[in-house]
């Protein structure tokens, strides 16, 4: 039986039916990783011994009829910003290359309590700052569909690992598009949850008013299974509202007929590939075929989303990165003065993109510039959020491209940071508004057969709805 190309839902079913053991599934993924990861570089740390132990534990739970959850025995990976007790967690940065957290992130604790198997920690842009994993201190992750191209970022290690059949699912983070864009580049499904839907506690932060933690897998159904386990209020993260966690797996079964899907004209600008346009059009036709109604809408402040985000995020970054001062974590060198500890740790420990964002943030927050940059950006953020509030009075969800092009060549944007920032042009507005969205594969480019996805955005705390639309589309494409 071919194990590794199966979905999480299929594997979970086969495991429960006793057609496969968790150990067999786990070993099959390990075999794939050992064969192909040298080329792709999806992992910062592999945890195969632990994985086998966890798989055996799961198998004995099954033997005793004591399975804990639908995820029990399922091998997954975690982006290397999710703190794992006793397992190195680096944020793909030299400054944390030896950091072994003495605590678990809430998302990992919940997954562990659900009985999952951990195969390893996946590569990311350094501290999640990037759109290609090229800022990782441990090398770029290559796209499984074309190794001369990037996997996208920042959760590129996770999306490439799912695409390469290295794991049944993964946890990523999305601050400005870091799950959705790499999912689009790698041809997998990734969910950016509503801000506050999933606890951020123990996940190394980038921009605290924007960061979200979410699932990446082959299908929307798989993402729903993972979300079911990780969603909900957490006492340790004060930004998680006490919102009921619905039954996502039930919700995705509902038809989409009668739903109104908005298409915002601002997302079809010059410079997007014809292939990308066509893929969105075919999604539109499928949705119409399923009985959904397509409505043309406008989100007038869309063009201001990138500059707004690239002020607000670096301001929050410059504050968050202040903790990396060489005292509690760091290089281990023993410099003479406290000032030398600070500057030398940061000089050798942090990469260019992190430094660049710290500089932008420090500048934009400094006296004399605060009003012109930070305050202004926070006001425009309100207008961007209001655009979505108004749109969702008329439509149930919004259909857009994920990025203007499929995966780009390694090195294409590395010398021009601004061009890299513009990669996030279609994902960032939703992040500023704090709403949810899903990226799912929909087609291939004519040249090079690269995956192209679509993005479906929904109102805050309506993950069930975007998962449902994505699931119904995926069911239609399959049959």
């Amino acid at each position, binding site marked *: 039986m071919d194990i590794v190309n199966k979905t999480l839902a299929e594997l979970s079913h086969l495991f429960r039916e006793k057609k496969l053991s968790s150990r067999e599934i786990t070993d099959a993924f390990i075999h794939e990783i050992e064969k192909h990861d040298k080329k792709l570089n999806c992992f910062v740390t592999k945890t195969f011994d632990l994985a086998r132990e966890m798989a055996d534990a799961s198998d004995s739970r099954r033997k005793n009829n004591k399975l804990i959850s639908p995820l029990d025995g399922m091998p997954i990976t975690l982006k290397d910003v999710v703190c794992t007790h006793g397992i190195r967690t680096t944020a793909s940065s030299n400054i944390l290359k030896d950091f072994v957290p003495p605590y678990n992130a809430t998302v990992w604790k919940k997954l562990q309590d659900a009985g999952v198997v951990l195969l390893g920690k996946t590569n990311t842009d350094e501290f999640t700052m990037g759109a290609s994993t090229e800022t990782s201190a441990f090398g770029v992750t290559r796209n499984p569909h074309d190794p001369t191209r990037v996997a996208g970022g920042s959760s590129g290690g996770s999306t490439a690992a799912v695409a390469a059949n290295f794991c049944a699912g993964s946890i990523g983070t999305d601050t400005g598009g870091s799950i959705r864009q790499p999912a689009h580049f790698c041809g997998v499904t990734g969910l950016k949850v509503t801000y*506050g839907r999933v606890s951020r506690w123990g996940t190394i932060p980038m921009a605290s008013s924007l960061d979200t933690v979410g699932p990446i897998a082959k299908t929307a159904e798989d993402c729903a299974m993972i979300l079911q386990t990780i969603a909900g209020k957490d006492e340790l993260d004060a930004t998680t509202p006490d919102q009921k966690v619905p039954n996502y797996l039930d919700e995705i079964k509902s038809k989409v007929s009668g739903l109104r899907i908005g298409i915002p004209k601002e997302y079809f600008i010059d410079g997007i590939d014809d292939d990308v346009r066509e893929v969105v059009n075919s999604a539109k036709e499928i949705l119409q075929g399923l009985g959904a109604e397509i409505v043309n809408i406008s989100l007038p402040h869309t063009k201001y989303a990138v500059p707004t985000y690239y002020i607000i995020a670096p301001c929050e970054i410059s504050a968050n990165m202040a903790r990396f001062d060489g005292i509690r974590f760091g290089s281990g060198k023993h410099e003479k003065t406290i000032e030398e500890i600070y500057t030398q740790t940061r000089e050798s420990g942090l990469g260019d993109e992190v430094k660049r964002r710290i500089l932008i943030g420090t500048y934009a927050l400094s006296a004399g510039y605060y009003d012109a940059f930070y305050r202004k950006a926070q*006001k425009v953020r*309100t207008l961007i959020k209001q655009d979505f509030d108004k749109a969702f009075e008329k439509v149930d969800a919004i259909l857009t491209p994920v990025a203007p092009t499929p995966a780009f060549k390694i090195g294409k944007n590395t010398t021009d940071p601004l061009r890299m920032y513009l990669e996030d042009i279609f994902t960032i507005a939703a992040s500023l508004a704090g709403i949810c969205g899903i990226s799912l594969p929909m087609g291939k480019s004519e040249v090079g057969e690269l995956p192209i996805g679509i993005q479906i955005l929904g109102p805050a705390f309506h993950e069930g709805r975007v998962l449902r639309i994505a699931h119904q589309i995926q069911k239609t494409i399959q049959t």
Partner: protein
Amino acid sequence: MITKKEVQHIAKLAKLHLTDAEVEKFTGQLGSILDFFAQLQEVKTDHTEETSQVTGLENVTRLDQVNVYTEEDSLLDCSPHKIENHSIKVPKIF
């Protein structure tokens, strides 16, 4: 436009030691990024409130109870410095 001197100043505030080559590179890159931000000035925001968070939550509280954490030593072990009396020993500040 941002000058090299300004870049050196903010680097100092952010405790980043930059080489001359880095100052040169970042000055150019930050200049074009700041120019790009300027387009926000065309948006009218006189009567717009700021958004600093989107949850709508305010004054989140919890019970003031002590939870026992037994791994202080492992937390301290994350530090590259000497540990004395359950504290990280750093060079004197003044």
